[in-house]
């Protein structure tokens, strides 16, 4: 990051290559699978970072800062279009081969999308991206304890919603 701060575009390119996929995955799932908007949002986040490279204060890793920016851009997008349609992943793209498993996958995606935006963000960052509670806390500007309680609440809701499939 220090080299990028000095205006080294090659160093910045390395940062983009390192974090671009995680940011797109997070944005895409926040928006119900809209991967085209997710790519636009990720580009927007990197451009913000480039513009503010002199003033960005990082605690440890760059990822929470980028996730925070992507999260804000996703919330803006969701405010513009409050009803998000879940984009179907498709059976052929799914690792599940049989119809029952494809149905479970569809139910699981729908269940995640039914979570409130706050709970969804925590689940996506924790379960899907494997971020630590501290990283999520930094990215979402909430205490780590709140991350834990939101994740508990979300998992309870998801377990209830998918209970029929676990038998």
């Amino acid at each position: 990051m220090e080299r990028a701060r000095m205006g080294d575009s090659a160093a910045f390119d390395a940062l983009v290559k390192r974090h671009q996929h995680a940011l797109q995955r997070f944005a895409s799932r926040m928006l119900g699978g809209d991967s085209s908007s997710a790519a636009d949002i990720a580009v927007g986040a990197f451009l913000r970072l480039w513009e503010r490279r002199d003033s960005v204060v990082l605690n440890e890793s760059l990822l929470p800062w980028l996730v925070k920016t992507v999260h804000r851009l996703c919330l803006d997008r969701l405010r513009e279009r409050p009803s998000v349609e879940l984009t179907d992943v498709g059976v052929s793209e799914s690792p599940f081969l049989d119809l029952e498993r494809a149905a479970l996958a569809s139910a699981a995606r729908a269940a995640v999308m039914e979570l409130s935006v706050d709970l969804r963000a925590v689940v996506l960052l924790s379960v899907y991206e494997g971020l630590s509670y501290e990283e999520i806390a930094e990215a979402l500007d909430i205490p780590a304890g709140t991350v834990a309680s939101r994740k508990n609440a979300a998992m309870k809701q998801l377990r209830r919603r998918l209970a029929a499939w676990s038998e």
Partner: protein
Amino acid sequence: MEMDIEKSLRDAWPVETVDISGRVAAAIEPPPDLLSELRELRRELSELRRTTVLLQDEIVRLRLDLTRRPVSRIAPFAPSEGLVRLS
């Protein structure tokens, strides 16, 4: 149980991503015509600096030339008292 649900959730939602590094690079790098314009401006600026230096040298030379000349009356019939040398 939670681990199973977490695994199910992950397996249920694969996301395809694309390489956006080219888009980002294109947005932060100024376009080539802008670069050549910048180079031209820089060249003009250094020309101007050189001209300024030449003019300053000329001013210094003229000042020196003036101070070396003897004091002379600058108006007919006016007294020369009170006139000062340029330095």
